[in-house]
Structure formats: C-alpha cells, structure tokens
C-alpha cells in the first residue's frame, strides 16, 4: 500500500509517497506501527514534481525512534524529575490545576501557545479550545516569529495576506524574480528548480542577502546589504524607478491609492545616500532598478531575511511599493509574494491561534466575525474573549502578577526558537504550570510539569496550507505507537475536564468540515474544500467559498482585498536595526538556517541520516585574520543578552562586517534581540550587535556543546 502525503517540514509541503520498505502490500488501512516506511517520489504533485531535499528523503527517521515519547510524563513533587503517568492521571492533574487557576485568577491566567507546524484542524481546534473551553484571550503561536511581518504588510497593502498569491511554478514564467532575504536553495531546495527553469527560459534571478548563499550562487544578480538595511535598499530602488520614469502610471492610477506621497517620500533616497546606509554600491542599486524598470514581468519575493526585523513589516511594505509602482501585483506571472517558512505557516495563521484572529482570517474585534464564529461554535458571541498578547509579549508576561500562570504548548520548542532565549527560559520557569505536547523531549518539554506524547506526521490525517495558499492533505500511513494520542484527543479530554459548554470532536475530517463553516465568508474561505476534492485536485487554493468554486490559484487579478478593490501604497521610513554596532559590540550578527536542519531542530537533530554538526560561526577571512581565528577554531560571541561559543567557519561569502550563526541549536537565540516590530510584533532575529573573540582554549568543552545561560 502506498500513501500520498506531504513532507513533515517546511512550507513547500513537497508531495511524497510513503510505502513499506519491504515493498509488501498489506491491504488497506494504516500499516502496523512497527512497519519500516520508505519515502518515494510523487512526480505528479506540481509544487515539487517528485524532488525532495535530504530532510524529506529521511523524514521517516523519526518513526520507531528511541527518543520517541510514548507515555505522559509528570514532574514529581518529591524528586523534581519527570516520571511516567497514565493519560487519566496526566489530564486530571492538568484539568484540576487549570480549574483552580481559572477560579482564582480568571481565565486569562491560562495561556495557550501553538505552532505553525500544526495541521489546520489542530490550529482551528486550539483556537476554539482557548476561547471556548478555557475562555482565555491569551493564545498566540510561533508563527509570529515566522512570517507575521509579511502577513501584516500584505494585509495593509493588498487587503489580504496569502503568502504567495500565485502558484510557485509561476516563477518560471516571470522575467525577473527578486528574492529579498530568501535562501530557498537551502531552506526549501526543490523550490530552486523553478529558478533554474526560469533561467533556462532566459529570465533573471536577483538575490539580496548579506551572505552569498547557495541561492545567491544560482543568481544572475547578487546584492549584499548590511543586515537590517533592506528597507533603505528598497527605497533607493523605488527612487530610481521614479527618477528613470519607470512607473506604470495607468496601473497606479486605476488600481492603487497613495502613490504620490510615497513618490515624494523616496525623493530623499538617491542611490548614493542608500549606498552609505546599505553598504551596496550606488551603481549596483541603479543597475537593479534599471533591470526591474525595463522588465515586462517582475516578481518580488520576501522571506525571513527581510521580515525578521523590528522594521520587518515596513520593509515588506517598501518592496510591495516597488512591485506596485511597476504595476506587477495582480498581473499574471508577476507581483509580490512571501515565502512562508513553517509547514503550515499559512494555514496556521488563518484559523484562530493568533491572539487577534478568529477562523477564516477574521478579526476578533469585528462584531460580525464574532457572531458568525460563535454561531458555528454554538456559544453566545459575548462569551468570546477579545484580543490577547502577541507571542513574545505573552511569554514575557509568564509568571508575572497579572500575567499568565499556566501555559499549554503545542507544536513549538520555545526555548530554542524564541529571541533572547535565556530570558524566555526564566519566564517559563516562573510558571505555576507548564504543559508541553510533543513527540520527543524537546528543550522546552524538558522544562515542563507535564509532557504529553502526541502523534506525528504519517500517524494522523490532517490538512496543511502550503506557501501558495494551496490546501493539501497529509494522510495517515501508519498506526501510531501505543500510548500516543493526537493533539485533538488531548483538547477533547481537557475540554471535558474544564466544563466546556460545547463538545470537541476528534475526527480530523469532521473538524475540517466545521472549520469550513467557521471560515465561510471570511477572507480565507475554506467552505467549498473537502478531503475528497483535495485528493482529486492535488490541493485546492483558498478562497474556495462553495463546492462548485474551483478555488483561487491567482489572486488580485481583478481586485485587491480592500473594500475599494485597490492596493494601497504606504509611506515607510528606514529605521535600521534597533541595536547598531558600537565600540563594545562592533559587528553585525545575523542568524538563519542550514539545509539539513529544520527550525529548532527538535525533529531533524534526531534523524540519524541527517548530519548534525552543531552550530558554527560564519565569518569573513579578513575578520578572521583580525581576530587571529582559523577555520574550525572555537570563537565566542557575546551580545547584551547572552553569549555562546562555536567553531569558526571562515568563508568569503559573508560581508566582512557581519557574522552568521544558524539557530537550530540552543545558542543563537541566546544572543538575538527581542525588539519587536510595532505592527507585526516580530522580534528582530536577523540583526543585532555582537562582539567576537577567540574562545579561551582552556574551556574547549564550550565549543562542542554551547551552554544554556546568559552572561557568565
């Protein structure tokens, strides 16, 4: 038996088939739990056409894994250690503690933290559980740290946020694609095939990144700005487009508003001024603007490099301004898009695990939205809480007198992925109760009072929405191990114990149908999508309001999401990284990803066939010589928030005034800055000031295993 499904990792959600490694077919239904699974190609799925990266090929490596959790763990009050418990015991304990906290401090003393890797059904159910079963406003998720800046900007400029408003394969048919802060050749390798196909057609690939990444190596034009200056670069490009007269005036006139103030605001961003700010020679800025200004079709795609800043949403707005000036948004094979990161980064932000949103991408403070969703849920609209705090603010409030006292975490490894992580860890420790649902004992689960073992990919069925807004179906291939239950079953069990006014289903397809009803009429309308349609059509693009509707692969072709149907230009100003290098911390630090790891590494670090070389510090040979550091030697990085030590990787592909550390391990996020974007609440992962020195050779152990903790 072969099951068509999708990779458990990034937002590309590559199609793949799962089959027993023995090749023997064993009838229908999920395979027995101990069956060895093998990944094979699914060439017909259009996003990846059978291609996979090594993470995908090895994705069955977490099945039958020795570190897999198969029974609940409860921290013993006597020993302080986590000890096995029955499901009844664990859920009763959580239920009792939550009831007591709710009685004493109110429902907002309980927080829920979700993840962008959860299926649509789980994300939806988690939001409903928080608002209905607990009654708390305090729910948010790690997607805030992913693409929230692009989401905020897309909503403001285009009236609607769908990562890519067109299928990924459209890249092949544009003329120039600009990748602002995306290293897709490493973070989602099969996507790079579309770049290669574009280049074969004679198109041009532009990569903007402080590092000459493997994506940049495949680019025709590479621009290398100082970390945190993408906004200034976009302003200068726009300045030059205006100066050259490369404005699509008919389009600007008929499809947008607000151009003239933006045009005037970039009069002060001539290329030589931007050169001083961005470190990109003025001639390169002019050439880039010339390339964009004379191309028939241009696609601008942003990713975390441009977005994970305290001015990330303005940076995205600046690039959207460029795309709008060129008349590209809402035109076939052109426009603006965001390359979402997490597996369900898109769907995860549409169905109510965001502090200010209800299913269907509805706003929680919109009375109409509240009454619609409440009617689907069978509760009075006034019983729904209002807006809660965003992810980092929620975590900062943990254990504070008027903050959250108990936190339930689903699908997130906060200790590794939050900025300023040592501070966040102390907040977690200040909780009365920390509950973590995960498949392995992640760094966050290890700090929990109760750990709940849950099913993983391939052991359960559910939908995801990939970076294109295509709703796809991950189908169960194998029976979960004994002792493991789905997150959905946990929510049902807890809802009962919390005297929820309504019942919670556990069957994914039933929940998906309810999600469809709840989303009906909203921006992200799933009402017409069913599991059968997804199977038959290889995914369905939202919005899809009715069974007869074909879905919407390309958006904005006739109108944008605002009421007047027009896109909006927004005046933005360059502010730069909040923390600038100074005498004490003289270099820029930027963080990112490597090919063989995914996010906090809780999964991929445990896959035997993926290399786990630990973190490293990328630095330029000039800087290495300045510090007398050789390749492979341990170096210490220190910021105002923490420090870490890791081996040097000396490469001439990075700016000499910046260093890079991947964040998949404990370390990088001890250093990062927790300054937040005022609109999206995105922390500034991508730029802060750092001091670098050769690590003391007397303490070489630090190099092998970075210690968790702040300054010595």
């Amino acid at each position, binding site marked *: 038996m072969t099951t068509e499904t999708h990779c458990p990792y990034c937002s590309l959600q590559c199609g793949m088939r799962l089959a027993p490694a023995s090749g023997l077919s064993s009838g229908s239904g999920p395979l027995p739990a101990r069956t060895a699974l093998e990944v094979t*190609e699914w060439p017909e799925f259009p996003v990846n056409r*059978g*291609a*996979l*990266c*090594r993470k995908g*090929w090895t994705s069955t490596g977490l099945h039958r894994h020795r570190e897999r959790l198969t029974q609940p763990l409860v921290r013993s009050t006597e020993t302080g250690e986590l000890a096995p418990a029955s499901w009844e015991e664990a859920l009763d304990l959580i239920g009792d503690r939550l009831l007591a906290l709710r009685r004493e401090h109110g429902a907002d003393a309980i927080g829920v933290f979700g993840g962008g890797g959860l299926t649509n059904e789980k994300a939806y159910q988690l939001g409903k559980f928080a608002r209905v079963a607990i009654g708390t406003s305090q729910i948010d998720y790690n997607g805030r740290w992913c693409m929230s800046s692009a989401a905020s900007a897309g909503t403001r400029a285009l009236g609607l946020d769908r990562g890519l408003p067109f299928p990924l394969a459209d890249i092949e048919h544009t003329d120039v694609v600009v990748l602002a802060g995306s290293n897709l*050749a*490493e973070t989602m*390798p*099969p*996507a*790079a*095939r579309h770049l*290669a196909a574009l280049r074969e057609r004679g198109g041009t690939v532009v990569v903007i990144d402080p590092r000459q990444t*493997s994506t940049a*190596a*495949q680019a025709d034009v590479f621009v*290398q700005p*100082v970390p945190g200056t993408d906004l200034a670069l976009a302003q200068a490009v726009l*300045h030059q487009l*205006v*100066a*050259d*007269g490369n404005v699509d005036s008919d389009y600007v006139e008929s499809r947008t508003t607000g151009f*003239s*103030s933006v*045009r*005037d605001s970039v*009069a*002060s961003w*001539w290329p*030589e*001024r931007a*050169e*001083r700010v*961005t*470190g*990109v*020679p*003025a*001639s390169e800025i002019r050439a880039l603007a010339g390339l964009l200004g004379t191309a028939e079709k241009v696609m601008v795609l942003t990713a975390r490099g441009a977005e994970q800043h305290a001015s990330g949403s303005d940076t995205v707005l600046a690039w959207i301004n460029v795309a709008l000036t060129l008349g590209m948004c809402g035109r076939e094979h052109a426009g603006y898009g965001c390359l979402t990161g997490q597996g369900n980064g898109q769907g995860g932000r549409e169905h109510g695990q965001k502090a200010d949103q209800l299913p269907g991408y509805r706003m929680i403070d919109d009375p109409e939205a509240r009454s619609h969703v409440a009617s689907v849920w069978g509760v009075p609209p006034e019983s729904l809480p209002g807006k809660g705090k965003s992810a980092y603010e929620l975590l900062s409030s943990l254990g504070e007198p008027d903050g959250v006292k108990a936190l339930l975490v689903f699908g997130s490894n906060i200790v590794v992925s939050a900025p300023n992580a040592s501070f966040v860890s102390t907040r977690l420790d200040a909780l009365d109760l920390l509950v973590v649902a995960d498949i392995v004992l992640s760094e966050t689960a290890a700090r929990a009072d109760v750990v709940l073992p849950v099913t993983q990919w391939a052991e359960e069925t559910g939908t995801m929405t990939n970076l294109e807004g295509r709703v796809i179906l991950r189908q169960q291939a194998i029976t979960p191990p004994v002792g493991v239950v789905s997150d959905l079953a946990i929510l049902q069990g807890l809802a009962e114990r919390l005297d929820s006014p309504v019942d919670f289903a556990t069957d994914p397809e039933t929940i998906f149908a309810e999600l469809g009803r709840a989303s009906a009429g909203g921006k992200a309308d799933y009402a017409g999508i069913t599991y059968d349609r997804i199977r038959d059509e290889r995914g369905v693009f939202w919005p899809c309001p009715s069974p007869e509707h074909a879905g919407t692969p390309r958006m904005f072709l006739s109108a944008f999401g605002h009421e007047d149907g027009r896109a909006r230009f927004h005046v933005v*100003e360059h502010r730069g990284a909040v923390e*600038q*290098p*100074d*005498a004490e911390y*003289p270099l820029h630090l930027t963080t990112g990803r490597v*090919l*063989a790891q995914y996010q906090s590494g809780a999964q991929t670090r445990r896959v035997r066939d*993926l*290399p786990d070389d630990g973190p490293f510090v990328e630095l330029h040979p*000039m800087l290495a*010589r*300045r*510090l007398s550091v050789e390749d492979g030697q341990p170096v210490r990085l220190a910021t105002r928030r923490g420090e870490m030590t890791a081996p040097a990787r000396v490469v*001439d592909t990075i*700016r*000499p*005034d910046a260093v890079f550390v991947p964040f998949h391990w404990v370390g990088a996020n001890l250093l990062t800055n927790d300054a937040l974007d005022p609109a999206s609440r995105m922390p500034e992962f991508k730029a802060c000031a750092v001091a670098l020195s050769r690590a003391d050779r007397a303490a070489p152990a630090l190099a092998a295993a970075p210690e968790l903790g702040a300054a010595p």
Partner: protein
Amino acid sequence: MRGERLVIVGNGMAATRLVEMLVARRYDGHITVIGEEPVPAYNRILLSAVLEGTHRAEALTMRDPEWFASVGVDLRLGSRVLQVSRKESDAMLVDGTTIPWDRLVLATGAIPTLPPIRGLVQLDGQLHPKVHAFRSLADCNGLLTALDERPGQRAVVVGGGLLGLQVARALSVRGVATEIVEGSEHLLSAQLDERGASILKRGLKKLGTEVYAGARAVRLTDEGLRLDNGYTLETDLVILTAGGRPSTALARQAELYVRRGVVVDGHLASITDPRVHAIGDCAEYAGKVTGFVPPAWEQAVVLAEHLCGGDTVYDGSRSVARLRASDLEVAVLGDPERTDGEVVEVTNPIAGTHRKLVVRGGVIVAAALVGDLARVGLITQLYDRRTILGAHEPGELLSAERATAAESLALPDDAEVCACAGVSAGRIRGCRTLDEVRGSTRATTGCGGCTSVVEQLLFPVGSS
C-alpha cells in the same frame, strides 16, 4: 514649550527634514515655513542628474504643499523674509506682513558667490545671457532652456569641485562640448591629492572634457572666456559652480554672532540667542560649515529632538562626499588631505584608479576612492562605524577581490557535490548513469543545482 510658535526660514533640504522629524515626533507647537522659491521643497542635490537627463524633473519633489497642509504646517512659498527682529520676536516679509515667533530656525542655505570675472554681470545688474549659476531648480531649468534653444553649443564650467564635475559631465552626456576651469592646482582640490586628481582628469579627458587647472577665468568677452594664462576659451555658455557662501544676511542684521556661518552650539542654537537656531549650509559648528546634505540632515534630526524635549546633542558629522555623474566614480570620506594618520594607498594610472585610506589607531579616519568603487559600501561602513581593523586589512581592502575561481573539476572524492542529499563526489564517481545517481544517492533530486557537476563527474570531458 507647549504650543510655541516655530518659524522656519527656508524650505530647502534641511528645513524639509526638520519639519518631517518634528511631525514624526509629534511636536506640539505651531510651525510656519517660509520658502523663497515658489516651488515645493525639492531635492536640490539631484539637479545635476536632471540636467544630465538621468533623473526626471517631476521626481524631485520631496514634500508637496498638500502634505504640509495635511500635517498642519503653515507653508508660505515664494515669500522672502526681509528682516528678523529678536527684540520683537517676529519676522517681517517683503510684503510687509510680520510673523511672530517664539522660536526661529534659520535654514537659509548658501548662495553662490560670483567669481571675480569681468563681464559676468551686465550694466543692468543681470548676469550676462551666456552665464548661468547652478544652485536652484530655476537655474537648472534656465540652463536646460538655453541648451534647447540651439544644438551644438560649447560650455565652460567654472569650478572643478564636486558640483562643477557633475555639471560638466551632465553637459557632456547631453552632447555639449564642455571644458572645466579650476583656479587651484587640481580638480577637487578640497578632497583629493594631486595623484587622485590627475587620475580623475585623465578619466574626464577620455570622456571628452578638457580640464584647465591652475588657471583663473578673468574676463568674459565676445570672443569667449579669457583665462589668466592668456588662453581664451570660445564658448556659448558659462556655468558658475565655484563656491558658495552661507546665507547669513538675516542673522547678521539680527546681530547674531556670525563668522562664516551662524555660529551654533550642540543644540544648533545661536550662541547669541538660544531662541534662534541655524541648521544646514548656513550654520557653523565647531568652526565648520559643511555644504553637504547628510550633516544638514543630522542637524535637523538633533534639532527636532531638542525641540521635542530630547537631550540629544550635535557633535559634528562624519562626511561622505559622493560624486554623482555618469562614468565618473569618486567617493571621499572625511577629509583625506587634512587628517592625520597612516596613509595606505594604491594608484594605478593604467586602470584609472586611485584609492587611499587614512588610518589612525586601526580606524579609517578618511579615504578617497577614484575610479574603483567596488568596495565603497564596505569601506564606508567601516569608516562610519569606526571599526578597529587589523594591520593587514587596509591593504586587503585596496587589493582586488578574489576572482571567483571556476569550479574545479578535479573535485576531491570527499567534496560535497549535492548539498540537498549530502552526496560526495566520490559517491557520484561510483555510479555509471544519472539514473543510478538518482536512485542510489538521491543527488540531483532536490534543488537540481548540482546536475551539471554530476554530469561532468559521470562523463568527464575527453572521455568517451
């Protein structure tokens, strides 16, 4: 002071920036801006690009009157202040109206100085019809009109500074035969040394522009522009770019202390009267007047913060002067000719490049780059951030960047060829066909970027 009346004299780049900053910081006083030019605030430093034809004139506006109205600022265009009274705390316009102020900002900029050339000015006090200044949008439009009137004209630019070079290049790009007269010994004498200037001069000559340095124009006659070395340059147009001086007439008349500019302290306040400020080209701080936009804007930011109750203090600026002209690459950081330090420099007349770093205590304190700006982005960052460099680094910054070596096909067996699947060259060599590579190693099945290398490893050139 809450609700104070703030009057800004000038509507140029410094003034516009100040208003923007005050609005952004929600300054709670009432702002009046008095601009002498009749047009909305525009980006003056792009005028030479407009002349050159590389920047559209319509795209110069920085803030139109609607914007000023929308933020509640009283903008008076085409108004000139006749005099300022500190005693009465008001400003009188030429039309007789008086505007009371609690605080006054002078952002009056600079005015071009007329070089001592006989015949520049006619008996009626107007400039000779051949002669053009180049400071304002009106000057720029006047010159463009003159160019349009007749093709095939010749021009002489008086002044070999940044503006002169930009104007000369602009005219030349437009097909006007152009020569430059510079009174000092070489071009950009305030910024470059002899070697740098000679590289620049050769570059200009290649582009068809002759430079007469060390020569002063003394007289404009019907024959042309006569120089003090006896030459007469035949010409249809004379463009004056040599020298400007701070516009300080109002300040002097109001008895504020003025040396070259209005002397100000760290709050950009006149040392005579703390209610009166000066920013931009008309201000003098620590004995310096700047004449560039970035310092003017830094002053505007500091003053805005000060007026909004902040405690920021202006402490001078690090300047970066960039020539903006087609096919001429010049960047000058700080004052390389008058700054102490160790000099590291490379001049290559054959390639037409000259690069010089002045380094003190490991920090780049000044630099001049001519003809090769490949590293300007990095060098400027190191200069602005006062990064302490290693002893080898100034040299490395001036040497050519390593050319990217063509991927060697002699890859060692342990070299990773396919990052997506983590496959080494050796494992590829162990396969016979692409299908075998795909099936047994998964190489080429991810991003596909390694396909050509894999093919070359499987079927080396020359093998059959």
